[in-house]
């Protein structure tokens, strides 16, 4: 078979026929065991507060409720953080974002479970929350020490440049809106084992986190994922749904299904990191960048989650396709009283690339030049100007040819008018 045949072969989706006829099975579609109970999560309604008291009497007495779990019911690790701690399943003393889970119930129906959690009385001592990137920077409220990548002497290069501009740029947050919301089904098995169906992008880590929560061996927890109804990063480290589901099952010794209501899902779970960047750039009359200094800050929410890796990606992608000989990038991971920002398509790369593209656009505006020309003079070269700001040599670089071809094929010059 020729290469071209292989690439252009038209294959239908493996599950296509099942998708279009309604027979593709998602977790909520699995036939429920007859003794199943349904879960719901009760969450905090303050962005930052000390928990004085949680009164769950009315919740326990609510129609259909069979069990209530709090942090006291967790035998092992009370955290679902994948890399670092910081994401308690249920916090003991402090609420750190609006929507943070505080307890959960198991009841005889979805409706009764969801009605029950609304009956909790939570008493708080409110603390001042930090919500925005700017507030966080001002208070130096950071999750980690700022990370810096520096090459050459950008300060001097900017100073010597004929043209200089300063600017800033924001990219917003984003809800994943996977069409299938967070859902898990936990079934207790022999020898304290559990079979957990979870709508997760990361079954093995789900297994480990549940095992640690229960203080059991990993092989006592089976995690099954047939398919998920979209994830986009929103189901990569959202272990809290499966963990709480399994905790309820552990307590009741009955199968539990926990399907988050869409509103709860949006309120409880983390979203895309919003970024704020500040920059200073020096360039010549062709738009060639001589020196660039970037401050790249992101809203990480109340915990590290994957923020370090995501910010790293932004930091490393800030060159996009451009050779910038003298550059400094400082990265600030802002801790805020918001749901912990998490993985989302692109994983920080796109936020970094957006920032440098904005710089290029602003240089073009300043010089009143076509931005395609400014891009061109800054592209990485094939045999020279091919070392990134983090010291990697770019191989197989086709950006220059690709760009020229695209300009011709898209009729760029004509459409630019």
């Amino acid at each position, binding site marked *: 078979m020729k290469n071209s045949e292989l690439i252009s072969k038209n294959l*239908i*989706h493996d*599950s*296509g*026929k*099942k*998708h*279009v*006829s*309604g*027979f*593709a*099975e*998602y977790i*909520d*579609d699995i036939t429920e065991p007859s003794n199943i109970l349904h879960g719901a999560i009760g969450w905090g309604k303050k962005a930052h507060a000390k928990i004085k008291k949680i009164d769950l009497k009315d919740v326990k007495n609510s129609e259909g409720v069979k069990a209530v779990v709090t942090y006291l019911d967790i035998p092992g690790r009370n955290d679902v953080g994948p890399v670092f701690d910081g994401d308690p399943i249920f916090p003991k003393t402090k609420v750190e974002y609006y929507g943070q889970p505080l307890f959960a119930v198991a009841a005889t129906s979805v*409706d009764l479970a*969801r*009605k029950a959690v*609304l009956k909790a009385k939570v008493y708080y001592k409110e603390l001042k929350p930090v919500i925005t990137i700017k507030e966080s920077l001002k208070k130096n409220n950071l999750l980690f020490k700022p990370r810096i990548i520096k090459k050459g002497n950008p300060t001097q290069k900017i100073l010597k440049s004929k043209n200089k501009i300063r600017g800033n740029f924001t990219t917003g947050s984003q809800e*994943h*809106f*996977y*069409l*299938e*919301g967070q859902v898990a089904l936990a079934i207790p098995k022999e020898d304290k084992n559990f079979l957990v169906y979870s709508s997760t992008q990361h079954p093995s880590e789900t297994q480990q986190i549940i095992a640690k929560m229960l203080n059991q061996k990993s092989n006592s927890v089976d995690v099954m994922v047939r*398919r*998920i*109804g*979209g*994830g*986009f990063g929103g189901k990569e480290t959202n272990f809290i749904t499966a963990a709480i589901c399994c905790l309820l099952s552990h307590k009741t010794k009955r199968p539990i299904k926990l399907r988050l*209501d*869409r*509103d709860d899902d949006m309120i409880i779970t983390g979203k895309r990191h919003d970024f704020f960047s500040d920059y200073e750039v020096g360039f010549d009359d062709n738009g060639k960048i001589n020196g660039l200094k970037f401050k790249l800050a992101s809203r990480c929410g109340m915990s590290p989650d994957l923020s370090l890796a995501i910010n790293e990606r932004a930091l490393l992608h800030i060159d996009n396709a451009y050779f910038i000989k003298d550059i400094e990038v400082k990265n600030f991971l802002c801790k805020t009283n918001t749901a912990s920002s998490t993985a989302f398509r692109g994983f920080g790369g796109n936020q970094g690339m957006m920032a440098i593209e904005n710089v290029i656009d602003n240089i073009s505006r300043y010089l009143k030049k076509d931005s395609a020309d400014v891009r061109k003079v800054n592209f990485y070269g094939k045999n020279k100007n091919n070392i990134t700001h983090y010291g990697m040599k770019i191989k197989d670089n086709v950006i220059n040819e690709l760009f020229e071809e695209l300009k011709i094929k898209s009729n760029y010059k004509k459409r630019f008018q």
Partner: protein
Amino acid sequence: MVSDTIQFIYNNKIYKVKNPDPNQTILDFIRSDLKKTGTKEGCAEGGCGACTIVLGELKNKKLIYKSINSCISFLPIINGKHLILIENLSSGSNKLHPVQEAMVKFHGSQCGFCTPGFVMSMFAMYKNFSKFSDEIIDETLSGNLCRCTGYRPIIDAAKSLNSRNTNDEFKKNEKKNINMLNKIQVEDIEISYKNKKYFAPKTLTNLKRILKNNSNIKFLSGGTDLSLEVTKKRGEIEKIISLNSIKELKFIKETRKFIEVGSGVSLYEFQNVIKPYYPDFYNILKRYGSVQIRNVGTLVGNIATASPIGDSLPLLLSLDSKIKIQTLKSIKTIPLSEFFLSYRKTKLKKGEFLYSVEIPINKHNHFKAYKISRRFDDDISSVCASFNFLIKKNIILKANIAYGGMSEIPKRATIIEKALTNSVFSEDTFSKVKNLMDADYSPIDDMRASKNYRMDVAKNLMMKFFYEVSGKQDLRVNS
């Protein structure tokens, strides 16, 4: 005759449910009782379309197919209808419906969770139309969200249906289904379930009798707003009275001077009636919710909910519409502008309901309407504006302006209107008078728009109206 049992066609048979919970959604019934899981819950508020099903119903002895959001529809509304689920489309896993085949062939699914909803919307289109223009396809799909970036292949799938033979299993069984539907459409419905009651009378007389004997009863037409009490607020509605079975309310009267629309008329039906008179009314309605919403939601229901962001209200207000209120004894007519009292409060008293709305027709007037929302389709407006002007010899003789999203009720811009009346129809006039916006409105900041944004947009829309009418600039950009 009164029955406590709802009847509908499902799987080519008559299916009966005695005294169902009137707060149960159709989606819950499908998944929990029928144990059919192809229909999905995405958002539980009629926004994403994953729960789309199709109801076949008789109209003028013909079967029409309506896509609806099963997540916000109460079960009893399927009484007398043909319930069609995604599983019913393919008689076996090897024999797909033409719509399903097209979706597979054109790669219209990725994660697959939104797919059954898309297929059902497209199926309704396939049954109701014979040619599928880009406009029809866009409208059909406006109530279904896909998140894996699949719109292009989905649209391609829909376009490919133009070359398909429209005969399918449903065509073959149509006569049989029509006969069955005729058989089950006879009785008034009165359901008792625990503390809840549901009434679906077939005549105004019976409706009035029920209203007289029951207090605190909620009216149900489309229920697209009412059902959120249950699905989102976790509340219960004890007494519901449905207006859907009353033929006397399902009328559209067209005369030379006005169009009167009964409270049983769906927005979808109305949009095609109003189109020749006021094209902009049609344009706004096409962006009102989605086909699924407009198939059940009514024009009069939109008035009765009295939402400050109801999309039809500014338009009806600027057109000097009147409403007819049915009291237990008689019908009284009042201008719509007097109907709204404060946030979601109206002049309706207990036991009263809206009978119809009367929209004056005036061919000499300039009528324009604009909806500004964060998303083009299936979104709630940040600002909605409507202008209805009579201009003679470049003098504004009548200036009717109404805005939605600018105050706690939809209302006319009376101060601006007064300033414009008898003025010269000129850029200068509009530029000056638009600054009176603060006198007429004080909008709020919310997640849809800020106060300042709303103010700016409201003023700009006045200018847009001027430029469009004066014909100097073509300012309309479609999605």
